[in-house]
């Protein structure tokens, strides 16, 4: 399967949600990929029927996010990959250096490539409700971000998702946030979900580590005091960097 076919599989023509698929990982194909991850089984008894017009945001480590997305495809949901980070440069054939990337996205790309066949078999309806796939490790360095590291951490923005009005226009008024543990999402995703919640979308939470159905979730509202605390903490802990994207409010991009 070539790059175009893999992309088409995850962003099929005609699907309401294909436009939101982040293309960057797919653009780095073809490239050598590790073995595919083992297929995990999920208890999906708590998943609402697709006909109930619920959307998902899957915020668990990347390959697992893809895997759960595929499982949800089997239940009628359209998985929408929102992985927005570059994989590291491909080393020369004779080189045997360790992967320099700060976040492992190669394993996500592997899962996407190997998941194509299952996704095709799901034969989803173009109007299938979306399951937005996010990498929970997008800002978590797996190694020291030293001078030689390939820093491919990423941020989720409000604009990476459809608006609440768009969701509502498709009959979606509830979103289920899925995480591995019963811990709050990182602030970038919380901000995006908060925008939905303020616009009237109900947010529920499901921790995979805990049994039971999703429960109502109230996102903390970021007030000005929280903003000051965040800035102060970023300054004092030295996490402030030149681009300001980690540990500080996100300024505008460079490009004019």
């Amino acid at each position, binding site marked *: 399967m070539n790059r175009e076919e893999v992309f088409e599989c995850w962003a099929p023509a005609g699907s309401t949600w294909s436009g939101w698929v982040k293309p*960057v990982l797919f653009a780095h194909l073809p490239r050598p990929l590790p073995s595919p991850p083992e297929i995990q089984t999920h208890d999906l008894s708590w998943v609402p029927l697709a006909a109930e017009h619920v959307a998902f945001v899957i915020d668990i480590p990347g390959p697992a996010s893809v895997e759960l997305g595929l499982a949800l495809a089997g239940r009628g949901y359209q998985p929408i990959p929102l992985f927005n980070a570059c994989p590291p440069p491909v080393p020369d054939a004779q080189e045997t250096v360790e992967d320099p990337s700060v976040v492992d996205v190669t394993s996500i790309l592997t899962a996407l490539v190997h998941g194509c066949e299952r996704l095709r078999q799901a034969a989803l309806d173009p109007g299938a409700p979306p399951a937005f796939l996010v990498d929970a490790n997008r800002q978590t360095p797996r190694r020291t971000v030293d001078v*030689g590291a390939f820093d491919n951490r990423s941020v989720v923005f409000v604009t990476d998702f459809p608006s609440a009005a768009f969701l509502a226009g498709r009959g979606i008024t509830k979103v289920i946030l899925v995480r591995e543990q019963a811990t709050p999402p990182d602030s970038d995703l919380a901000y995006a979900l908060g925008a939905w919640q303020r616009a009237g979308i109900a947010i529920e939470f499901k921790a995979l580590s805990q049994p039971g159905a999703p429960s109502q979730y109230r996102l903390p509202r970021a007030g000005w005091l929280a903003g000051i605390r965040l800035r102060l903490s970023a300054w004092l802990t030295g996490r402030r960097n*030149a681009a300001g994207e980690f540990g500080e409010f996100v300024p505008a991009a460079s*490009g004019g």
Partner: protein
Amino acid sequence: MTGAAIDLPPCSPDDWECPGPLPTDDFARIRRRLVLEHCKWDPQVADTETVARFPLVLPGHLLDALGRLAESLDTEGEAAAREIDQRPDLVGRLGLPRRLARVLTDSSRPWTPTAVRVVRFDFHPTTEGWRISEANSDVPGGYSEATHLPAMVAERFPGTHRCGDPQTAVAQAITDGAGGPGRAALLAAPGYMEDQQVVAGLGSALRRLGWRTCVGRPGQVTWTDGNAAFATRRGTVPVDALVRFFQGEWLPRLSWGREWESFLRGARTPVCNPGFGMFTESKRFPLIWDRLETPVPTWRALLPDTRDPATAAWRQSGWLLKKAFGNNGDEVLSRTMTGQREWRNASWSARLWPSAWAVQRRFVPLPVQTPAGRMYPCLGIYTVNGRFAGVYGRLSPRPLIDFAAIDVAVLARGHSGMKGHP
């Protein structure tokens, strides 16, 4: 502040065409190639598809005329920057961060050599004729959208052609300047895909010309005796050119030390863009025109009346508030078009720190009729080492070009000196 000596081309968007839209399948193919082959990695922003399904077709001679104006702007801007370099008293008026200003005015060290100098002037059709809103002379982007999108769309509209290839023009100029291909490092801030896509696209263009490239962040560059090297896990590799897609005012925040200064002054490895590009990038550049000996008649003819917030009565509706250094339109605010809260915050900032802002008389842009309704065009005209190199088209549903504007293929119909070659 505007002069009448410059001959501006006619400005009648009613005569322009937006044929189409492209059939769904054709557009899907173009979009797929753009995102997979040509590093356009932000084709959707919230509910907005950021690539227009139709082109904007202009007479070739009009695009040539805009290209000549951009060349004049570039010539005048570079000459002004050279004069400002000799007159540090003027730099204080430009709103530069203090540490950056100190380096830019340090004439004891020569400028770091220029790998290529690329500027994008944003032209708008208005009720008063052609106007520019700004010059992007530090980190202009949009190369892939201005290069590959029009090339693919033109194939579907016989009788039209792409006007220039700015991406290849930049890569070719770097190659010419280096005396042939070598190894280049392309730098952007982590976490910003809209920046990383620009360096990825430029990297592809350089590789097509035989370069070896490394992509990373400015913090990976080390300097020894003015020579740059790029740090990787495999070790440090010397580089022959640096493409800095990382805005100049952020450089001082790279470290408390002085390594970052080499991007601007005192180094030997050529860098794109040069540090003196910051002078014309400042929205406060017009505030020093009257004190320059260098004439800037084209700038005076095209840039709206711009003043210091400390002296102008700008809180009326006819003015825009602009951050001295802002890059994607988010820091351009209008009393009538910006949210109340944003306007209030910016107003306070401009009152407390007027030297970080400029105010500019609003122009009334003219719309074009498109298959998606009336939209306001902005034509970003590139110059590469002073020569017209291509056009980056954007359309906005409201009379303000910001992050929500969409990219449109600008095509030429009829004779044009630019036929898609750099």
